[in-house]
């Protein structure tokens, strides 16, 4: 990163330099989506954190599944077909 830009960094105004690790940011997004959704969906709040963890895990596994599917299609299936 340009040292001049680093010195001038203002949180919430300037972007963070997270280009190399952008995919890890999907994990907190999945957790926050699960937290907001389950806060209004669970009938009994005693089950809240368990349901939230389960839903977040399902989202993350879904994203990983899509990644693996895309990898297989693009790297192995398409070269065979085309």
């Amino acid at each position, binding site marked *: 990163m340009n040292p*001049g*830009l680093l010195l*001038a*960094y*203002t*949180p*919430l*105004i*300037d*972007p*963070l*330099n*997270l*280009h190399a690790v*952008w995919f890890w*940011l*999907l994990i*907190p*997004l999945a957790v*926050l*989506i699960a*937290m*907001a*959704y389950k*806060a*209004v969906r669970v*009938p*009994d*709040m*005693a089950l*809240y954190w368990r349901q939230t963890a389960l839903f977040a895990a399902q989202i993350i596994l879904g994203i990983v599944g899509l990644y693996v599917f895309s990898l297989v299609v693009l790297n192995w299936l398409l070269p065979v077909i085309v």
Partner: protein
Amino acid sequence: MPVRTPAEAGVPPETPPGIRMPEHHQHPPKHGFDPVAGLLAILLPGLGHIARGEKKRGLLAGFAVLAMFFGGMLIGGIDVIDSREDKWWFYGQALVGPIALAINHVHQTEFKAFGVAHETDASGRIVYHTTERLLRGPHRLRSVFPGETRKIADVEIRDANDNVRETRRLPVAAPAGPGEGPPNVKSLAKVNEIGTLYALCAGMLNLIVILDAMFPTLNRRKGGGK
């Protein structure tokens, strides 16, 4: 062993004999209508549930929605909330409520500038000039790029014959001098996409929270449980 009828067994009459429906199918949740809670939920994420007495639900939903929204801004900067350059994304982000609208207003009025033409006159003064048509097109309000700074300047609005029709004070993107720079760094590529996605998800989730506050499920535990 005596055979019990479905009614004796507590099963609704429309249920086929021998099939036991799940609890939530036997007693589907009832929904009410609470316009005040809906309005409060629009004003601030989670406030509708707190006003209804479901404090824990409201606090958790509000925290998650606001953490997603400001998390997106932390990742991609204020550039991810932009009704001009990312119009369709902003429609979803605006569902977070007045906070999103206020931040977008600040972004448009305090950080952006018109990319008008400039030239140095005989006395060495920089003159900014454009036309009405260019202000709506190529010289429109935009982000300030690296190598530029934002200044409030008198801009000559000229007609087709290059005659000055009027002068307006406008924010302009001017060449940066020593120690000057743009008011914010424009986010690019994946960082911009992820930041925009965070703020969009916050808006979409808040729509669910608003609808749940406005049309609450009546037979669930008040106060949000333990």
